[in-house]
C-alpha cells in the first residue's frame, strides 16, 4: 500500500532497481545451473576415469582375495594433498554386495552387507538393482547427501565386485558460493552505476507527470493559469494529457466567466426591479406631498417663517425626487434618431474637462449617417462613459473614444489609461451607489447599464495592465420602428 502511494519520482528508480536485481538473480541462476552441470560433468568424468583405473587395478587383488592390497589401491587416492578429487569414501563390494574393503574400515567394516550400512546405503542398494552391475554409472539419489559413482570390477567377463566412490553433494557448495559472491559483487557495481542513471531518468520521466498532477490538484480551489503549471510540451501521452488539461482549464475559465457574468446581470436585474418598485412607491406619496405644498403656498398665505420652512421642505422633496428619478431609468422615446451632430455635441461637452486635466483625447468616429437609435439615451451612455474615463485618467493621460458600425449595431469603445479596476470590483461595477466616492453620486454606470439593457445591448469592461476599456454594443432598431 505504501508503495502504491509512493511518488513516481521514487517508484521509477525503485522499479529500475528491482529490474536490475531480478535480471542479476536470473542471470546468476542461469550461470549457476550451467556451472552445476559443468562441475558435475567434470566430476563425473574424473570419477569415471578414476573408477576405471581403480577397477582395473583391483582385478588381481580380488582374484587373489588380497584384501590388504585392495585396501592399498583404493586408499592410494587419499594419500595426496587433494584427497581423491573430492571423493569422501571408496569401497569395494563383493559379488554379494557386502563390503569387501573400504577406505574407512571403522565406519564401513568388511563383510557388512551394503543395505545394513544405513538408510542411504539401503537406498543405494535398491538403486543398484539386483543384477550385477556391468556399466559405469553415477547414482544420484534425491534424498541422499552424497552421490555415488559405481564401477564394476570385471575380469574375463566375470563380475568380481563393484567399486563404489562416494562424493558429497556439498562438494559444489564452495564453488557456488564463490560464483554467487562474484555475481553479487557485479550486481552491486551495476547498481552503483545504474542507480544514479535510473534515478535521473526516473525523475525526468516523473517530472511532467508530477507537474501535471500538481496542476490538476489545484483545480477546484482555483483554476490555475497555464503559466503557473509549466506543463510538459510533447506529442507523447503525458504531453497529450497536458494539452488536454490546458484545454479543459481554458474551457473551465470561460465557463466561470460566463457564470460570473450571468450572476452579475441577474443580480443587476434584481436590483433594477427592486429599485424600480421602491422608486414607484416613493414617487406616489412624493407627488402628493409636492402637490400639497404647492397648493398651500398658493392659497394658504403663509407668513415668512412658514414660507421659508415650506421652501426647505420642497427643496428636500425635490432632491429625493431627483435621486429616485435618476434611479428609475426610463426610456422615453425621443423624436429623432441619432445623428453625427449629436455625437459632435458630446465632443464639445467633454472638452472642458479634457483640457482641465491636460488629457489627450483621441476622437475616432466612423459614423457619418443617421442611425436608428434614440439619440438621448445614446448621448447619455457615451457621456457617462467619457466622463468616467476622464475622471479615472491621470493628468496628461490619454483617452480614446471610438465609434463604428459592427454586427448590425453601433459599437462604442471608450478607453483610458490609469489605475485599473481591481478584479473584486469588476463584478459589482454596475450596481447603484457602488464606488460612489469622490465626484458623482455613483449612479452613472448603473444608469448606463440600465439604458444599455433597455436597448437590448451589451456592455463589457476589460481592465488590465493600466488600461480600462468599456465596450458597448447597441443593436440598430428596425427601420420601420425607427
Amino acid at each position, binding site marked *: 500500500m505504501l508503495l502504491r502511494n509512493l511518488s513516481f519520482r521514487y517508484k521509477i528508480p525503485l522499479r529500475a532497481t528491482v529490474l536490475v536485481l531480478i535480471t542479476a538473480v536470473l542471470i546468476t541462476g542461469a550461470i549457476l545451473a550451467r556451472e552445476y552441470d559443468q562441475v558435475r560433468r567434470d566430476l563425473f568424468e574424473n570419477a569415471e576415469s578414476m573408477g576405471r583405473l581403480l577397477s582395473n587395478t583391483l582385478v588381481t587383488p580380488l582374484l587373489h*582375495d*588380497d*584384501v*590388504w592390497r585392495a*585396501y592399498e589401491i583404493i586408499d592410494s587416492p587419499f594419500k595426496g594433498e587433494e584427497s581423491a578429487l573430492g571423493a569422501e569414501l571408496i569401497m569395494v563390494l563383493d559379488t554379494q554386495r557386502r563390503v569387501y574393503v573400504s577406505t574407512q574400515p571403522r565406519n564401513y567394516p*568388511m563383510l557388512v552387507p551394503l543395505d545394513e550400512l544405513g538408510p542411504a546405503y539401503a537406498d543405494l542398494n535398491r538403486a543398484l538393482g539386483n543384477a550385477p552391475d556391468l556399466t559405469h554409472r553415477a547414482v544420484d539419489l534425491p534424498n541422499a547427501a552424497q552421490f555415488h559413482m559405481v564401477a564394476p570390477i570385471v575380469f574375463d567377463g566375470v563380475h568380481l565386485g563393484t567399486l563404489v566412490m562416494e562424493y558429497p553433494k556439498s562438494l559444489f557448495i564452495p564453488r557456488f558460493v564463490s560464483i554467487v559472491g562474484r555475481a553479487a559483487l557485479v550486481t552491486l557495481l551495476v547498481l552503483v552505476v545504474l542507480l544514479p542513471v535510473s534515478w535521473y531518468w526516473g525523475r525526468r520521466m516523473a517530472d511532467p507527470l508530477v507537474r501535471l498532477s500538481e496542476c490538476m490538484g489545484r483545480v477546484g480551489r482555483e483554476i490555475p493559469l497555464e503559466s503557473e503549471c509549466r506543463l510538459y510540451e510533447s506529442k507523447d501521452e503525458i504531453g497529450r494529457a497536458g494539452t488536454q488539461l490546458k484545454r479543459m482549464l481554458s474551457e473551465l475559465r470561460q465557463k466561470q466567466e460566463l457564470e460570473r457574468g450571468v450572476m452579475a446581470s441577474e443580480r443587476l436585474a434584481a436590483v433594477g426591479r427592486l429599485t424600480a418598485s421602491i422608486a414607484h412607491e416613493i414617487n406616489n406619496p412624493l407627488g402628493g406631498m409636492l402637490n400639497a405644498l404647492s397648493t398651500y403656498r398658493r392659497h394658504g398665505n403663509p407668513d415668512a417663517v412658514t414660507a421659508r420652512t415650506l421652501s426647505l421642505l420642497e427643496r428636500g422633496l425635490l432632491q429625493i425626487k431627483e435621486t429616485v428619478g435618476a434611479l428609475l431609468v426610463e426610456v422615453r422615446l425621443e423624436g429623432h434618431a441619432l445623428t453625427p451632430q449629436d455625437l459632435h455635441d458630446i465632443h464639445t461637452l467633454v472638452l472642458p474637462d479634457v483640457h482641465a486635466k491636460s488629457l489627450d483625447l483621441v476622437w475616432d468616429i466612423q459614423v457619418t449617417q443617421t442611425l436608428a437609435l434614440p439619440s438621448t439615451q445614446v448621448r447619455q451612455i457615451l457621456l457617462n462613459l467619457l466622463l468616467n474615463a476622464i475622471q479615472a485618467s491621470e493628468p496628461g493621460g490619454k483617452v480614446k473614444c471610438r465609434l463604428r458600425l459592427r454586427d448590425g449595431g453601433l459599437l462604442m469603445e471608450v478607453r483610458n489609461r490609469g489605475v485599473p479596476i481591481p478584479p473584486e470590483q469588476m463584478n459589482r461595477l454596475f450596481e447603484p451607489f457602488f464606488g460612489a466616492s469622490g465626484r458623482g453620486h455613483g449612479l452613472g454606470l448603473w444608469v448606463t447599464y440600465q439604458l444599455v439593457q433597455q436597448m437590448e445591448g451589451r456592455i463589457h469592461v476589460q481592465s488590465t495592465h493600466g488600461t480600462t476599456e468599456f465596450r458597448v454594443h447597441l443593436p440598430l432598431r428596425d427601420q420601420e420602428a425607427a
Partner: protein
Amino acid sequence: MNRRTLLRALGAGLATTLLGRPAGADAAPLRIGLTPVFLDDQTAFLNEWRDYLAARLGRPVVFVQRSSYREIVDEVMAHRLDLAWVCGYPFVREQARMRLLAVPLYLGRPLYRSYLIVSGDDGVSASLDDLEGRIFAFSDPNSNSGHLYTLYQLQQRGENPERFFRRTFFTWSHRRVVEAVAVGMADGGAVDGYVWDTLSRIHPEITGQTRVVARSETFGFPPLVASVSLSQADFDAAQSVLMEMPRDEVGARLLHKLNLDGFVEGDVALFDDIAEMARATGRL
C-alpha cells in the same frame, strides 16, 4: 672407533677384496634378498646399508625385494639370490637348502617375540580368545610371528583360523599388520614384536593406535641365510662383514637405525621351537 677396530675393518675389507676377486668374477654383484622381517620400506636407509656392505665386501651389492617371503625363499633355493634375510619359519622348512649365515642380536639376544595386537579403541580384549569371530590380520603365510605362532595357538585350542575368525587376510608385511589394525580394518593382528617395537620408535603415531595384548615366548630371530651355491669364501666374507658391523662407526649407526645390536653366527637349534610349531600345525 679406535685404531684397532679400524685396522680390523680395513683388514677385513682388504681380505674380502682380495679373496672375492677370482678371475672374471670381480664385477658380479652379491644379491641379497630382503623380506619385511624388518622395516624394509626405508629406501634411503637401504641404499646406505647396501653401499656400506659393498664397500666392505669390495664388490657390488644388490638388494632384492619381493612382495612375499615365498618369492624370496624360492629365489634363494633357485640360487638366484646369494643371501637373504628371511623368517625363522621358512628357514626351518628349507634348512636343507640354505645355510645359516648370521642371526641378528636384538636387545642383546638373538631372540624376538610375536605380539598379538588389537585396535587402540578396543580396551576390552585381553587375549586371542577375545578375538573370536572377529577380523584378523596376518603378515605373511611364511612368517613365524605373523602367522605360524597364531596358527599354533589356535591349533592348541583345537581351532583353525577359518572357523575361529570371521575373516582373515594377509598384509604381506608386519608393518602393514600394524596399519591394518590401526585403521580398523582388522580387529586384531599377529605381528613381529621387534618390528612393532622399532616402528613405535620411528612412527609412534601408528603404533599408538594399536595396543599389544599378548607377547609370545621368545623365538630365534629371523636369520640371514645363504644359498647353498654361495662359495665358502663369499659366505665367510659376508658373515665377517656382518659380524664386524658394530665395530665401526658407520656400521654401528646403521645397526642403530635397524634397532639391532649386531649379528652372531647363531645356531640352528635357536629355531627348534619354530620347527616344533610348524610340525604341530602340519606345516613342515
